[in-house]
C-alpha cells in the first residue's frame, strides 16, 4: 500500500474529478478534468468554481444546493443531467456544444472529522440524454423541460434503488423458484427461497450445478442448460419428472416441475448465463393421479352396479307372473341394494355394521314380530351387500308365504361369531305362520341366496321347510367379517 501514489492514481482516473474547499475554490483537479474544461491546472487552483465557470441558470442553482448539502450533512449527493455547454475544438468547427453531465459530490473529512473538502466526479451523459429524448418523442426542447426531467431522473434513481431492493425481496420470496446460473459451468449466483426448498435447503451460490445438485446428472437437465447457453434458444418443460434429494440424507424423491431456461445476455448480446424459473407441480401431479384413480374406480363401481341392476331387472321380469308384480319386486330389490350402498358410503365403502344393515332392511315390517339378537359385527362391503339382498329376499318370502303373511307369526334372527377371525353364522327362523310346504320351483329369491352366500362369499346355506316354520342357516367365512364387539 505504501507504494501507491494517490496523486498519480487520482490523475489517472479516466473520468473528470476535482476537489473544492468550503468556499468552493479549486484545490485539485485531474487530467480528465483539465481536458473537458480545456483549462490547465495552474489556471484552476485557488480560484472559485463559479468565478471561472459562471452558471446562473437552474443548473448552477442545483449544483450550489448540492455543495451546501454535502458540506452540511457530510453525505454524498448526486445531481443528474446538468446542461453545461463547452467550447467545441476548432478542428470540429468551433463554437459551443450543448452537453449534459451527472455530478457526484463526495465529502472529504479532515483529521477532526469535519467536512473540509468536496470531491466532484462528473460523467458526460449527453448520449443518454439524447437516447431519452429519442425515446420520449414528441420532445419539447428547452432547458426548463430538461431540468424537470433531471429532477425526475434523480427521483427515479432513488426510487429505482428502493425498487431494486423490493424486487430482490419479491424474487427471494416468490412462490415460484428462481435461480441465476453464470458461465458455461452454470455456477449459481442467485437462488431464491423456493429454489432452496426444492433442493433441501442446500448451499448453492458459488457452485456449479453439477456439483451443487449431483443427482440431476443423467436426467437431461444439464444437457438442456448446455444447449441454452450455447444457442441462446430458450428451453423448458411442463410437469417434467425429476428425481431430487429434497431432504438431506433422505432418498431421492420424485418431483414434477414446470420450468424454463432463458439465456442471459450482456450489453453486447453475449450470453453470460441462464435464468431458471419454474413452479413445483409435484402436489398437483399427485392429486391428478389420485383423481384419475378415483375416477377409474368410480367408473368401475358404477359399471358393476349397472350390471347388477341389469341382472335384477332381467331375472325379476323373467320370473314374475305379471308386470305389476314384476315392478313391485324390482323396485323393492333396487331399494334393498340402494340401502346397503347408503350404509357403505357412510363408512367410505370400508364396512357396514350388521345390526344396522338388518334394521334398515327390515324397517318395513312390524318390529314386534321380529326378534334380532347378536353381537356388533362389521362386515366387508361385499358381505354387506350380500347380506342386505339375502335378508330382503327372506323377508319378502316370509311376507308372501311365511310367518309375516298372517297377523301372528314371528321371525327370530340370531347371529353369532364363534371366535375372532372365525366365520359368522346367521339363523333365520320363522314360527307361527301358515303350514309350510317346500316350493315346487326354485325362484330368483332362492337363487340370490345361494349365489351370494355359497358362490360369492364361499359360505354355506341350509334351508329347512319344516311344517312348523321355514328356517335358514347361513354360514359366512371369516374373511367376510372385519370385526366383532360383544
Amino acid at each position, binding site marked *: 500500500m505504501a507504494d501507491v501514489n494517490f496523486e498519480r492514481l487520482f490523475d489517472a482516473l479516466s473520468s473528470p474529478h476535482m476537489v473544492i474547499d468550503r468556499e468552493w475554490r479549486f484545490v485539485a483537479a485531474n487530467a480528465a478534468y483539465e481536458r473537458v474544461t480545456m483549462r490547465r491546472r495552474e489556471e484552476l487552483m485557488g480560484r472559485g468554481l463559479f468565478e471561472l465557470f459562471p452558471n446562473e441558470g437552474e443548473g448552477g442553482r442545483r449544483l450550489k444546493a448540492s455543495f451546501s448539502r454535502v458540506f452540511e450533512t457530510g453525505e454524498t449527493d448526486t445531481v443528474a443531467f446538468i446542461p453545461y455547454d463547452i467550447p467545441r475544438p476548432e478542428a470540429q468547427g468551433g463554437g459551443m456544444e450543448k452537453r449534459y453531465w451527472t455530478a457526484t459530490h463526495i465529502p472529504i473529512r479532515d483529521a477532526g472529522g469535519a467536512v473540509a473538502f468536496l470531491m466532484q466526479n462528473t460523467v458526460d451523459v449527453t448520449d443518454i440524454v439524447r437516447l431519452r429524448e429519442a425515446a420520449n418523442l414528441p420532445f419539447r426542447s428547452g432547458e426548463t423541460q430538461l431540468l424537470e426531467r433531471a429532477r425526475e431522473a434523480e427521483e427515479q434513481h432513488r426510487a429505482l434503488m428502493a425498487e431494486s431492493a423490493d424486487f430482490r425481496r419479491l424474487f427471494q420470496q416468490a412462490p415460484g423458484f428462481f435461480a441465476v446460473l453464470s458461465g458455461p459451468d452454470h455456477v449459481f449466483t442467485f437462488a431464491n427461497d423456493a429454489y432452496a426448498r426444492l433442493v433441501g435447503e442446500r448451499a448453492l451460490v458459488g457452485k456449479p450445478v453439477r456439483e451443487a445438485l449431483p443427482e440431476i446428472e443423467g436426467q437431461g437437465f444439464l444437457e438442456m442448460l448446455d444447449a441454452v447457453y450455447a444457442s441462446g434458444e430458450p428451453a423448458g418443460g411442463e410437469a417434467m419428472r425429476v428425481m431430487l434429494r429434497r431432504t438431506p440424507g433422505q432418498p431421492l424423491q420424485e418431483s414434477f416441475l414446470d420450468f424454463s431456461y432463458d439465456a442471459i445476455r450482456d450489453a453486447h448480446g453475449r450470453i453470460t448465463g441462464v435464468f431458471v424459473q419454474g413452479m413445483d407441480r409435484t402436489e398437483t401431479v399427485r392429486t391428478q393421479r389420485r383423481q384419475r384413480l378415483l375416477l*377409474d374406480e368410480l*367408473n*368401475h*363401481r*358404477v*359399471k*358393476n352396479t*349397472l*350390471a*347388477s*341392476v*341389469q*341382472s*335384477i331387472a*332381467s*331375472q325379476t321380469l*323373467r320370473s314374475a307372473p305379471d308386470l305389476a308384480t314384476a315392478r313391485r319386486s324390482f323396485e323393492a330389490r333396487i331399494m334393498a341394494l340402494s340401502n346397503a350402498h347408503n350404509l357403505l358410503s357412510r363408512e367410505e365403502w370400508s364396512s357396514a355394521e350388521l345390526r344396522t344393515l338388518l334394521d334398515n332392511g327390515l324397517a318395513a315390517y312390524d318390529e314386534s314380530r321380529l326378534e334380532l339378537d347378536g353381537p356388533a359385527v362389521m362386515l366387508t362391503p*361385499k358381505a354387506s351387500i*350380500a347380506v342386505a*339382498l339375502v335378508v330382503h329376499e327372506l323377508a319378502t318370502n316370509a311376507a308372501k308365504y311365511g310367518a309375516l303373511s298372517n297377523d301372528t307369526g314371528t321371525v327370530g334372527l340370531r347371529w353369532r361369531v364363534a371366535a375372532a377371525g372365525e366365520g359368522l353364522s346367521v339363523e333365520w327362523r320363522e314360527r307361527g305362520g301358515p303350514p309350510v310346504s317346500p316350493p315346487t320351483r326354485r325362484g330368483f329369491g332362492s*337363487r*340370490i341366496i345361494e*349365489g*351370494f352366500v355359497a*358362490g*360369492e362369499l*364361499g359360505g354355506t346355506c341350509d334351508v329347512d321347510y319344516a311344517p312348523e316354520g321355514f328356517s335358514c342357516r347361513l354360514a359366512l367365512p371369516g374373511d367376510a367379517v372385519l370385526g366383532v364387539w360383544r
Partner: protein
Amino acid sequence: MNGGATGLQGLRIFVVEDEALVAMNLEMMLEELGCAVVGPAMRFDAAEAMLAEGVAVDAAVLDVNVGGRPVFPLAERLAAAGIPVVFATGYGREGLAEGWATRPVLQKPYLAADLARALRRALAD
C-alpha cells in the same frame, strides 16, 4: 333368443365372475344361447381349484378382477390349454394387462348379443 340360431349351442363355457348377480345373469344369457355353464366360479381360489382339477370346456368368460385379484394367471393357464378366453370388466379395454389387449372384451353391463359376438370372435381367433 333361439339356441339353434346362435352357432354356440352345445358349447361348454367356463365362467369366472365374482359378483353373484352378474354371474347369475351371465349364466342365464349363456343358457339362452344354448351353452352349458361350467361354474360359475365366484372366488379366485374356487376358480383355481376347478382349473387344477381340469375342466373340459370350449371357451371361458372371465371377470378381470376377481375379489380384488387380477384374473390373468387363470387366463394364462386356459390359453396354454388352447381354450379361447373372453374378458368381462367394468374398466373397459384399458383394464387389460399387457399381452391381452387384443382379446375380446365385454364392458359391463353387456347384452346377450354382445356376449355371443365376443364368444364367436374368441372361438374364431
